[in-house]
């Protein structure tokens, strides 16, 4: 039986985590001048591993094994549902505070340049995931239409 989720692999989860990371980075940039604001970022590896775990719980295991190093460790049956929220990837618990390179007087730990480059990098990776997905879909179309 063909399973679209396992066919698409890790990419849909990666897209979700990328988009949430870009949200966090956008929040950092918006608060670049807010006194006392502490910059945050997502622990991408952990978030994506949990996303893969959620997928395994729902339907497929192919995507998770395709993830290689991202293979989740399940130690109890509860683990499958512990890190997932219904209908998506939850990254709340993977939010971490950034360690500032240089402290500022007003307690703000946003480094605009670092955030900008992280944002750009994240977007390029998002685009890459999109391209992989695009290829998957075009392969599928080829298979269907011949």
């Amino acid at each position, binding site marked *: 039986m063909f399973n679209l989720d396992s066919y698409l692999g890790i990419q849909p989860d990666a*897209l*979700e985590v990328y*988009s*949430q*990371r*870009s*949200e*966090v*980075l*956008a*929040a950092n*940039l*918006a*608060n*670049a*001048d*807010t*006194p*006392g*604001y502490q910059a945050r970022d*997502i622990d991408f590896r952990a978030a994506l591993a949990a996303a893969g775990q959620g997928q395994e719980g729902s339907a497929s295991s192919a995507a998770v094994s395709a993830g290689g190093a991202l293979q989740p460790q399940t130690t109890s049956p509860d683990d499958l549902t512990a890190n997932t*929220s219904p*209908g*998506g*990837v*939850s*990254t*709340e618990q993977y*939010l971490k505070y950034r360690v500032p390179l240089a402290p500022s007087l007003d307690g703000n730990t946003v480094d*605009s340049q670092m955030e*900008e480059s992280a*944002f*750009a990098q994240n*977007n390029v990776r*998002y*685009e890459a995931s*999109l391209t992989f*997905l*695009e290829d998957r*879909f*075009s392969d599928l179309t080829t298979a269907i239409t011949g």
Partner: protein
Amino acid sequence: MALSNIFDIAGSGMSAESVRLNTVASNLANADSVSSSPQTSYKARYPVFQAVQNSLAAAGANGINGAANASVMVKGIVQSTTPGTASYDPGNPLADSNGYVYSSNVNVVEQMADMISASRSYQNDADVLNTSKQLMLDTLKLGQS
């Protein structure tokens, strides 16, 4: 969907920075204003920014799972308490009985630096908005080619 939240976040950032640009414009415009008493002289205005932590629980309850976002708001405008300078200018129609006029406490150099900082931050936010919009459009076109 996380990308659509970026519109709110970057929008709030742009709005806050434009308030800051507004106060800079007001301060610079009044840099040379004089007054007949220290109390009524123009005081430099500064916006106070505050992060709005959109609560994790609320975001989860609405089905918008994922990262907590923090937009920014202008909590208020404060006036500088630095004393302005008094200068002896008896010919000025605003001079008090001793012939002194009281100028504003605006530091023009500081305001210019502030203006550049606000403008850079605004550009960053606009950039973030554009990029996210492009990503969303690309995502919408997924599988159509």
